[in-house]
């Protein structure tokens, strides 16, 4: 039985349109994980600080824990599952692998989505640009060195291709 607080949400995720009835309070991240089974997008905090939930909304990186699924209605979402696949990693994914930009991997989907945005806005970022650009992403493991190295390597690879 739909209740007064349910909403119908129709949106496009990784190129496929989908529609679900959900409580209005459903956050985009929970919609992706629980309604669509796209569990690559993580939740790491309650306070909009960690960035593990980063996805692209109409091509721009946002924190999916701080967007209602209802707000995303009519928009296009790209998640970590939508940018590459096992046989052919996205250049940013490849760089995280090649530069060992992760340890436990919990922050990694959000880091990859955030780095994509940094490079989209500035194809030739400096070390400082990358660090400032990652202000909204927290990693508890790596100490960031290899994440920054991966971002710079990805930017270089993407400039060449």
């Amino acid at each position, binding site marked *: 039985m739909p209740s007064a607080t349910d909403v119908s949400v129709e949106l496009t995720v990784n190129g496929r349109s989908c529609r679900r009835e959900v409580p209005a309070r459903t956050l985009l991240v929970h919609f992706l994980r629980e309604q669509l089974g796209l569990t690559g997008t993580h939740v790491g905090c309650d306070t909009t600080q960690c960035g593990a939930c980063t996805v692209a909304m109409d091509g721009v990186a946002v924190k999916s824990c701080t967007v209602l699924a209802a707000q995303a209605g009519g928009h296009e979402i790209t998640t970590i599952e939508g940018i590459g696949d096992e046989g052919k990693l996205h250049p940013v994914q490849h760089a995280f692998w090649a530069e060992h930009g992760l340890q436990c991997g919990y922050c990694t989907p959000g880091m990859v989505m955030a780095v994509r945005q940094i490079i989209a806005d500035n194809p030739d970022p400096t070390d400082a640009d990358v660090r400032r650009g990652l202000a909204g*992403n927290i990693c508890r493991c790596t100490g960031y060195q290899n994440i920054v190295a991966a971002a710079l390597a990805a930017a270089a690879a993407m400039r060449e291709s």
Partner: protein
Amino acid sequence: MFPADFRYLRAESLPHALDLLADGEDVKVLAGGQSLLPMMKLRLAVPEAVVDIGGITELAGVSPDGDRVRIGALTTYRALQRDELIAARFPAMTDALAVLADQQVRARGTVGGCVAHGDPAADLPAVLLALDASVTVAARGATRTVALGDFLRGIYATDLATGEIVTEISVGAAPPPGQAYEKFEQSASHLPLAGVCAALSVSDGVITSARVAVTGVAGRVFRSFDTERALAGAPAEPASLEASAALAADGAEPLSDQHATGPFRQHLARVLARRALARALTRATGEVPPR
């Protein structure tokens, strides 16, 4: 965490939003959601209904209008950062946008939301106050415009009445080129423990007028009138800046919390005022300061 249950109402237009808002008791306006949703997730805000104004595209965008520049309430920080007029004429805004929150939050957070939220430690209000901004507010059948200094009342307290929506912020179209924003951030939230915006007019080696606004230090963003008075008429040289910056937090009732004591915040305000003034003066005169 997720918010408590609420009714979600999507506004199709400003009049529709105002009607929806007038219908309920405990209704919140949702713009970008970068302040409201975190508060709802922590159950610090538990509205019965939420009116989503995010789809009202006519409330977004920057446009010159005579001697003012209008910034639609739904203009995101990211859009402001990418706006040519803002980049050309409002360097202090560019300073603040570069260090405000993070790229994901800037993509959704809006200028109107920031002002309506009334956070005493937000970056942009200091810049807007130094630039003499005014806020336009709509209600059913009426709009009014208020100076930002009168609009911001205290901690999460503003002049916004029930049933009203912030529709636009405007600033003078010909601000002094000598302007700069400096902050010292709390590293987890990126909010300023203190932030200072200075805007200087300089003519023939004399500072003819100054506006200096401070955020993060007290319960509301405030202008440092002592600093402004000390600067007006002073020679445009480092010694004047030094003396006037020392007055930047005088008379403020500083906030004290787990992140910083009141006296530390006041100290930061003085140091940041000096830096902001120095950079503003450099921009006003086009001279590169000695290192």
